[in-house]
């Protein structure tokens, strides 16, 4: 069994329900996110549109974070999830430096690395990840990508090649797919980040490390 995630960006409407559900389920502290939805506005008025891209850990088959972790705090579990043992983590931040997707952060409360685990604790109890349950349009599809009869496998088959992963050139083989994605949504270098253009301009970040 290899669990994977697929987000149909045609369906996502940027409600951020998944983001909130994740925060609540995993008690993610203020100023940090295991899952977040990025808005990118494309075009020039009046020909404009807004795209929404949920971003989370890709649970790579060849995970740089697992390789660089000096104490195996980041480790694979049998279903392919890259899990984290926060009791073992020494907070070296090697995984933060290694993840090409910026999906790992230092939890300001525990001072250890943290990231999306595909809700491994819920999956172990045969439940769906919290973000899947919360999505009002079923844009999040979760399942076994090695089982051709699973929903995710069928979705991939029916998408006629319109299935993408982020930064495939990194050779990480992500187990997280997007349908309807494009350069603007999946490549962080393909969009400007202009000061003052954010919908929320006064975000406050907590310090990432207590002693830093």
């Amino acid at each position: 069994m290899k669990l994977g995630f697929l987000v149909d960006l045609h369906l996502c409407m940027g409600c951020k329900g998944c983001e909130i559900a994740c925060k609540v389920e995993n008690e993610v502290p203020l100023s940090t996110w295991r899952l977040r939805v990025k808005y990118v506005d494309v075009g020039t008025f009046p020909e404009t549109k807004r795209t929404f891209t949920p971003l989370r850990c890709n649970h790579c088959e060849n995970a740089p974070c697992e390789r660089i972790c000096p104490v195996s705090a980041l480790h694979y579990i049998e279903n392919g999830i890259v899990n984290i043992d926060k009791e073992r983590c020494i907070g070296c931040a090697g995984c933060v430096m290694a993840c090409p997707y910026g999906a790992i952060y230092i939890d300001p409360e525990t001072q250890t690395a943290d990231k999306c685990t595909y809700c491994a604790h819920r999956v172990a109890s045969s439940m769906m990840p919290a973000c899947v349950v919360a999505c009002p349009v079923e844009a999040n599809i979760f399942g076994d990508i090695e089982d051709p009869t699973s929903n995710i496998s069928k979705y991939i088959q029916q998408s006629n090649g319109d299935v993408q992963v982020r930064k495939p050139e990194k050779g990480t083989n992500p187990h997280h797919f997007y349908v309807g994605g494009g350069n603007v949504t999946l490549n962080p270098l393909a969009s400007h980040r202009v000061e003052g253009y954010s919908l929320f301009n006064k975000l406050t970040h907590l310090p990432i490390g207590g002693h830093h």
Partner: protein
Amino acid sequence: MVHESLAATNAVVTLDVALPSVVWGWIITMNMWAKSVGTGVIFMLFYLLKKYPNEAGSYRFPVVVISIVFIHLFLFFTVIDLHQMFRFWHIFFHPHWTSAITVGAWMATLFVGLLFLLAFASFIKKDNALFDKTLTWTVVLAIPVTLYTAGLMAQSTARELWQMPTESAQMILAATLSGSAAMILLDTYFKKLSYEAKRDLGIILALSALGAFILYMSELIFGPMKAEEVAATLEFIKGHGEYTTMFWIGQVFAFIAPFVLVILSISSRSEQLLKLAALSALAGLWVSKHVWLVIPQLLNMS
């Protein structure tokens, strides 16, 4: 390609809560800088004992002390950078051998053991034969200890700027640069080395500076042609980039000024200029290492 599409799509991020960027800051710079000195002086002692055994003989113990101090500084900064520093022992009891951090920690520990053996041989047993035999193995181990940080940077796959071949060369050059500079400064106090030995150290310093400078300039000019992430990263040290001034301060103090000063010192047999070159190199190395460490972390990964 992205550059063209940016203008065409006019894509602007209007809502994102990107995670905080600089995670490895000045503490890691201190770590790399101190390690360069700690292993570099061992390389220099080995060279001087081979070429100038009579003059360099009395440096056996002082150089080992300097190496022990700087390697412990390196270890200190390594540990205090951990967000859970009291779990450092996990590296020894739950080692994950694919990680450059684990391999480096074990090698550095072995290196410290050999340094204390050298101190024992030179200070307590006063046995030069044992010292020289142990020094050979210490030099052999000093090479991977110097290089492992390059491995760690290479494993940081998110940071395209850090590539193993270039970083390996930079680490070795940093060690020979800072090692020769530290030996030049050490000799201003002990005054045991002949002019020829000091000139040799000056030449090592100048060639290390030249090599490192060529590597940085090669990355600056040719790096952007290879990968868009490298191009985006190097924008921080080009034009009006956030770190442009600091980058050039580092290049001038670490490499350009020492190279010129060593040439002038050799042509005029001036030891003052050599000392100045050594001081400039040590200060500039910290700055140039810091800039190279920080700029890839400014790039948004998502």
